[in-house]
């Protein structure tokens, strides 16, 4: 078993999930079964293979250019024109579970 009960608690904590006892048991079983399957990736020698973080630096761009130069088309002047206007507070806060006229309201932040 790769993942232990302790790992489940640790990862749930990182992900800001609480999980019930039942859910923790299920996670322990499912994560181990998925990671066992994922292990087949180790059959491949990737020591000289570069990681691929995204698609768009290889296709649909000028490949003669390097680095961020390739994405020159995505660069724009720092002006608002043509972009979405900022939302008025009333609209931006409309979906908040708790807010006053200007701010989102949350429980006290000092104590964890």
């Amino acid at each position, binding site marked *: 078993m790769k993942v232990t009960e302790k790992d489940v608690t640790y990862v749930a904590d990182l992900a800001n999930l609480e999980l019930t006892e039942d859910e923790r048991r299920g996670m322990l079983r499912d994560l181990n079964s998925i990671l066992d399957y994922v292990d087949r990736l180790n059959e491949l020698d990737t020591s000289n293979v570069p990681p691929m*973080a995204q698609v768009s630096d*290889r296709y649909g761009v000028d490949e003669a250019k390097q680095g961020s130069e390739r994405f020159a088309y995505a660069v724009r002047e720092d002006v608002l024109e043509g972009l979405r206007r900022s939302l008025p507070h009333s609209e931006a806060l409309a979906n908040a579970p708790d807010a006053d006229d200007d701010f989102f309201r949350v429980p006290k932040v000092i104590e964890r």
Partner: protein
Amino acid sequence: MEPISLTIEGARSAIQERKTTAVALADAHYARIQKEDGQIGAFLTLSKERALAQAERIDRMVADGKPLPPLAGVPVGIKDVMSTRGVRTTAGSKILETYTPPYDCTAVARLEAAGAVVLGKMNCDEFAMGSSNENSGYGPVRNPRDLTRVPGGSSGGSAAAVAAHMAVFTLGSDTGGSIRQPAAFCGVVGLMPTYGRVSRYGLIAFASSLDHIGPLTKTVKDAAIVLRTIAGRDPMDSTSTDLPVPDYVAELDKPVRGLKLGVAKEYFAEGLDEEVRAAVEGAIEKLKGLGCEIVPVSLPHTPYAIPTYYLIATAEASSNLARYDGVRYSHRARGVRTLSEMYRRSRDGGFGTEVKRRIMLGTYALSAGYYDAYYLKAQKVRTLLTRDFDAAFTKVDAILTPTSPTAAFRLGEKSNDPLAMYLADIYTVTADLAGIPGISIPCGETREKLPIGLQILGRHFDEATILRVARAFEQAA
């Protein structure tokens, strides 16, 4: 006018020729939804006010003798992962049960600018995570062909609505097969464009290096019409490219004779249902008969695609879904005292089991000590999978595969075994990982009359060729 079998052109010309009105067409679709959708469950929210306002606008254009835009009065359904201003958008999740976006997704805005009438929002797996639509927080969608079976996922509502003629077409999203697999299960056309071809602005993010928006339609030509409308650079999405958008419709009927079509043995290996194999092999023969040259190719890293996909997609999801914290727009648990407790209890109560499972897997794969072994490893194998396609496309113009290893399975059949469910995407995740376009079109039925899908994969930004092959097959079938 009965919505049955109306295509985009059919709907538009019926309005133009005054055989019907845009309002009557919208009403006819709502009547059909009223009659059929109780047992199918494809729609989560209807946007009648917005639809009728748009339909009336189109009808005024007709009355004034103005030229009609290409999608004038055409009723469309939008997968509920795409933001619609003033119309509730849940992503199939209880955590967004009351969320009403303050802006429109670019793809939706472009459809409406072209005259389309948005009927409502389509059910889907929660945050587009699933292959059966059983992970929706609002109940499953049932396959219109057989109500005991799933419509596929995650764009299950989008596929079922087109199959049941509750919309002329729909938009879906595809991260690992979520347009193509449900299209195959429901017997409709589903197109995933190249990564960067269609703006994702306003799409609720699942896995940003893999998410795509695309159409589900009744015909290949309709898919070309929709793609032409939604494709192209959007300043609001830096991943959308500025490559010119070809006229996909004009290219459709170019001859396919002499095109080289690849067939990879890795897509016909163990686990492929015999009836699906027979139908897809029959489709390959048919395309050969149309003058295409069938060329064996090898995509040797295919068996590693599912593990690669489920590491990368979950890692990105764990990051993207961190925003659901109970503060700005998502469900907040009651009676919490501290901030940390608010985060946890809100997320616990709002997310379903599969979403939690993927957040956990992704967080684990990114966590200290495991990053290199899982996430980085998967990114390297992603390079290998992409190189497979690069090599194959030096020899062929497109690649033919089954869309899914089986036809639609029964509700509940795989819902307790996440790994078995993940394997339903075995032929579709590769295109998402490589960023290439793919289309699924109907290519036959099983003995039980369940649709079977043929998948056609193409080079980056070469949707024109896969649409052309799909059209030739459709016309010959």
